[in-house]
């Protein structure tokens, strides 16, 4: 059933959902998250297995500080890549942008598969562990998710967040109102990449091995499904979508071989049955009001 290992995987799913959500919140359909996830994970795997300064022990352990450093570096590398590529890619519109980002995912995947130091098809294994059990990863994963959520929440009352919403609504009009739309889109893209990269670094340690298959096209669209099925109106949507859809294949194990078909059917029917996703604007409003009442100390209904 739902053990600690699955919980961590669910949190990773939620993190990747938020990563896909960020460019979408600025009106950009970017499917590049798996590429940055792969980059972050690969860097983490390489550093932890081959950089002595991190102090990986012979028993396969890793100091906590080194782990956190690697998380940061994974995010930074992914962010730098996004900065490089973003300016070029974000000139594209609509479906062209989506496909260009899919192309990026494939290029990164093949590069990781073929570069001499990234482990080839087998990948890198025996990645040192900062925690003895899966449960240890819960806190960092939750922490990362809380950080991401806090940033998303703050964005709503910041000029940058409003600019992102304006660009999403009408990019041309937003430009005419003095918004540097290229910069706004790029910022969302880079934030998304940093989150994906750090998540990749976390996942690489959690999974103990890492290979090129971690970032691929169908995972990109599955992550998009987290956002769409969870609800694209707020960052809570992809969190809910990510948690549920990551848990689903595991929960369906008793069904046997047909579970992947069932999972695919959920993705197929989701948009039909829940056009606004699970976190609908109406629901978000109710949650908002509940929060306000809690602040004011009124009794809950």
């Amino acid at each position, binding site marked *: 059933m739902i053990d600690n290992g699955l919980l961590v995987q669910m949190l990773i799913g939620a993190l990747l959902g938020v990563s896909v959500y960020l460019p979408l919140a600025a009106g950009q359909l970017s499917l590049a998250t798996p590429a940055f996830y792969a980059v972050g994970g690969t860097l983490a795997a390489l550093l932890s297995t081959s950089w002595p300064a991190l102090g990986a022990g012979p028993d396969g352990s890793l100091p906590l500080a080194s782990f956190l450093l690697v998380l940061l570096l994974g995010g930074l590398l992914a962010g730098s890549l996004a900065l490089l590529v973003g300016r070029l890619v974000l000139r594209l519109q609509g479906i062209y942008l989506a496909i*260009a980002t899919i192309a990026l995912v*494939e290029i990164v995947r093949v590069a990781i598969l073929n570069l001499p130091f990234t482990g080839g098809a087998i990948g890198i294994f025996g990645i040192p562990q900062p925690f003895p059990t899966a449960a240890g990863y819960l806190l960092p994963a939750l922490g990362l998710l809380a950080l991401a959520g806090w940033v998303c929440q703050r964005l709503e009352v910041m000029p940058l967040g409003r600019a992102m919403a304006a660009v999403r609504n009408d990019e041309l009009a937003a430009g005419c109102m003095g918004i540097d739309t290229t910069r706004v889109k790029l910022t969302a893209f880079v934030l998304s990449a940093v989150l994906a990269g750090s998540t990749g670094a976390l996942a690489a340690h959690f999974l103990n091995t890492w290979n090129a298959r971690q970032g691929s096209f169908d995972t990109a669209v599955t992550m998009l499904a987290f956002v769409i099925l969870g609800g694209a109106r707020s960052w809570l949507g992809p969190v809910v979508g990510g948690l549920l859809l990551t848990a689903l294949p595991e929960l369906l194990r008793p069904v046997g071989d047909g579970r992947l078909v069932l999972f695919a059917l959920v993705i197929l029917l989701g*948009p039909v049955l829940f056009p606004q996703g699970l976190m609908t604007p109406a629901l978000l409003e109710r949650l908002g009001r509940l929060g306000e009442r809690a602040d004011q100390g009124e009794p809950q209904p």
Partner: protein
Amino acid sequence: MIEALLQTLLNGAATGGVYALVALGYTLVFSVLGVINFALGALFSLGGYLTYLLMGGAISANGALPGWGLPLPLALPFPLALVLAALLTGLASLVVERVAFSPLRRRNAEPLLYLITSLGAGLALVNLLQMLMGAEGYAFPAGALAGLPAAVVVGGARIRSVQVLLLAVCAAAVLALTLWLEHSRSGRALRAVAEDATTARLLGINSDAMLRLAFLVSGGLAGLGGGLIGVSISLPGPYVGIGYGLKGLAVLVLGGLGSVPGAIAGGLLMGLAEALVPGEASGWRDALAFAILFAVLLLRPNGLLGRRLVEKV
């Protein structure tokens, strides 16, 4: 030397032909509906497996019913099996339309949602195939291309005839498609709907029927591609179509969304470029298509032959 080069070019053109088929499949639906059918790759795989079964092939030990084959009075020769498989795949494509596209169209859903539902449909199909046929590779029955010499001699060089066959079939299919679109009543009606659905409807054209026709032909093209790859190489697994589907997508965008000549030119370009990658770097071959696409999009944001979308202010 010349022989090797000719063979390479031929291989590239043949593969490019298959990419073009897939790209054309996307183009047909995109031109009418304005969205990409992400289930096309799965239909490609389906076509491959159907061709195999129709030729008397049996399910392998890993599948649901090991050793089982279609209860055919006799195994069909390859050409017949291929055509029939393509037709059946076209029908499957209609099912995909009914299940993944119709419900959204009725609610005027935004294009993004079709991406999800069509991927869901595609994944469901691929996993169904995996359940049924198993995840192992399938080689087509020996003697599948009986009667075809192993190699032909062109200009003094011997080249594998199966590649010639591949190229010939792709070329024939593309030609048939173009003729149909240009000169037949239904083809022109389809193009009318693609151009301007409202006017077409006012002229009495049933745009829903045209959409279904687009899905039918599109599925048929993908299925054809799957059967061709199956017989010329093999079917490494149900996910083979996903790879070709992605490449086809790259070709689609490279040539310019909605452009038929663009899809053909793009396909050939991709196929030849990939074939010219030297053997030592063959692992990078898969990235080449996407690197080319990336580069082209940066220079021409609407593809090689795509139309610029001018926003009205």
